[in-house]
């Protein structure tokens, strides 16, 4: 498999605090790589290191096969666009001027592609409105447009949907999918909003305390996420007795709710519960989602 980014035991220490602690990850070409971790896990630190904004304390990484210690790393960075934390835009300029400014920084000889980019991110009608008067979503989209100015084939987005309204989230999601599918841009996206990330990502990297605790494809995650039936009953103690008797795996959530794994014969189960004077109130088929997978994973890692 061809990788756009490979990191090898990356460490970043701020005095006694280890923001990254031997992080190793691989971003395959063409992927939407979801970078999942709680606040302070080291997501933004890693992105800053890749962008060259900070230097690693130890370890290294390769961007398009070029090591970060190589002098030509700046050339491979030209193939990359990034929005780190907040969008990097001049607030006293219009959307068009921001893109023209970025074209100048990149040495793009003409501004022909500017209108297409504005159209791509849905900002073609902003006219003379300055970026400081844009909504958060518009600024985020402009930030992505700026990052796309040099036609990069690797895009890094740090928490791109933070603070956006539902409409803004949908717009950014559609934009990312469009860029990945139509322009084959590899995307590394970090986010707290796991539900949203699960709609996009083709690969995942779970980070905790500065290291990757699990790296997997979306298919692997799907296989790992177990299906279950969430049952609401009047007495989960009775339910536990019956399920134990039937040899079925389960997880009691509270006094009335439990997740039942596997597919039992529900007629038999209901009859057995009736004998225990326990009524079944609701039954709902559920997939274990990214969120619960992440919670289990991080919880497990914390107790290792």
């Amino acid at each position, binding site marked *: 498999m061809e990788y756009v980014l490979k990191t090898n035991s990356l460490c970043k220490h701020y005095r006694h605090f280890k923001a990254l602690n031997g992080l190793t990850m691989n971003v395959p070409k063409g992927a939407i790589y979801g970078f999942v971790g709680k606040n302070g896990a080291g997501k933004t630190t890693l992105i*800053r290191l890749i*962008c*060259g*904004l*900070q*230097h690693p304390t130890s370890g290294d990484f390769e961007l398009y096969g070029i090591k970060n210690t190589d002098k030509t790393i*700046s*050339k491979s*960075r*030209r193939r*990359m*666009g*990034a929005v*780190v*934390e*907040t*969008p*990097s*835009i*001049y*607030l*006293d*300029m219009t959307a068009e*001027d921001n893109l023209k*400014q*970025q074209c*100048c*920084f*990149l*040495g793009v000889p003409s501004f022909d592609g500017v209108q297409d980019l504005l159209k791509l991110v849905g900002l073609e009608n902003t006219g003379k409105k300055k970026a400081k008067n844009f909504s958060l979503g518009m600024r985020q989209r402009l930030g992505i447009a*700026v990052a796309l100015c*040099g036609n990069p084939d690797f895009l890094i987005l740090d928490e791109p949907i933070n603070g956006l309204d539902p409409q803004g989230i949908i717009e950014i999601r559609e934009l990312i999918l469009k860029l990945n599918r139509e322009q084959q841009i590899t995307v590394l996206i970090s986010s707290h909003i796991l539900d949203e990330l699960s709609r996009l990502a083709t690969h995942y990297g779970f980070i905790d305390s500065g290291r990757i605790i699990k790296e997997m494809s979306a298919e692997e995650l799907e296989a790992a996420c177990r299906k279950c039936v969430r049952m609401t009953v009047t007495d989960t103690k009775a339910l536990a007795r019956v399920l134990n008797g039937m040899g079925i795996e389960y997880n009691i959530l509270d006094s009335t709710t439990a997740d039942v794994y596997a597919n039992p014969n529900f007629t038999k189960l209901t009859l057995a519960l009736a004998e225990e004077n326990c009524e079944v109130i609701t039954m709902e088929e559920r997939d274990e989602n990214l969120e619960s997978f992440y919670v289990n994973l991080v919880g497990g890692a914390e107790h290792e």
Partner: protein
Amino acid sequence: MSKLLRADFVRLFKSKIFWLAMIFMAGLASFASWTKWQDSQDFPDHYNPPDGILLAGAGFIGIVMAVVIGVFIGTDYSNGTIRNKHVIGHSRTAMYFSNLIICVTAAEMIHIAYLTIIIGASVLGITREFEMSAGNIAALLLTSVFTVAALTSVFVLVSMLISSRTAGSVTLIILSLALIIAANTIHYRLLEKEYTKPYSYTITNEYGEEVEIEQESVKNPKYLMGTKRKIYQFFDDILPNNQIMQMTEDYEDDLPDHTAYFPVYSLVLIAVTTGAGVLLFRRKDLK
């Protein structure tokens, strides 16, 4: 770096604060010329050349450039656009030099705007002719160009190392004021005479007679000597605001005239501040 320069020049020329600074300095030059013209109208027989106001504007350029540089470089930090430049492959050294070149150019343009009006007013006959020869004026102007560049390089160093626009701007304004205060303190201390001038005064004694008392000259305790004087002299020669003071004020003093060396001192200051700035900026964590 040419790409950075092109883009940053576009941003400079779109910057309102830059044009306001130009207008302020041009206004200052117009006001200074107008007062000279007013003097010549009020006292037509008194020769009042504009030599004194030629470089007076350079004294203000520190404060003006503190604001311009604080906003220009600070905006790159506050908007996060400094990250963009690095992410797309520009080296930190190139980014530093680009900002230095842009800011020095801006400072020189503002300086020249002031000078053009002062000299123009004299050439057009609004103010009197300069007492200095054309050659001396040219030498002084060339020297002042180096001095302004040195002052700007100090400000660029500070501004590139402070990530907050507000903190950076405030620091630069305080620094510009501190340099003015330091220039006055150092320069006037060097002007202290070694001995006080002898003087006499008359008193009336107990018999009603007037008696003249002669006071001999005594050693001035504020007079600097030895290593301390050399240190003061060093700073008086190398600090940009001190250079401007020496070029502006025409004292009949015992101080050695080092004006001819000022361009060299300025170049040394530019080299030192830029070298330190590039070194520190390359190690700086950009957020």
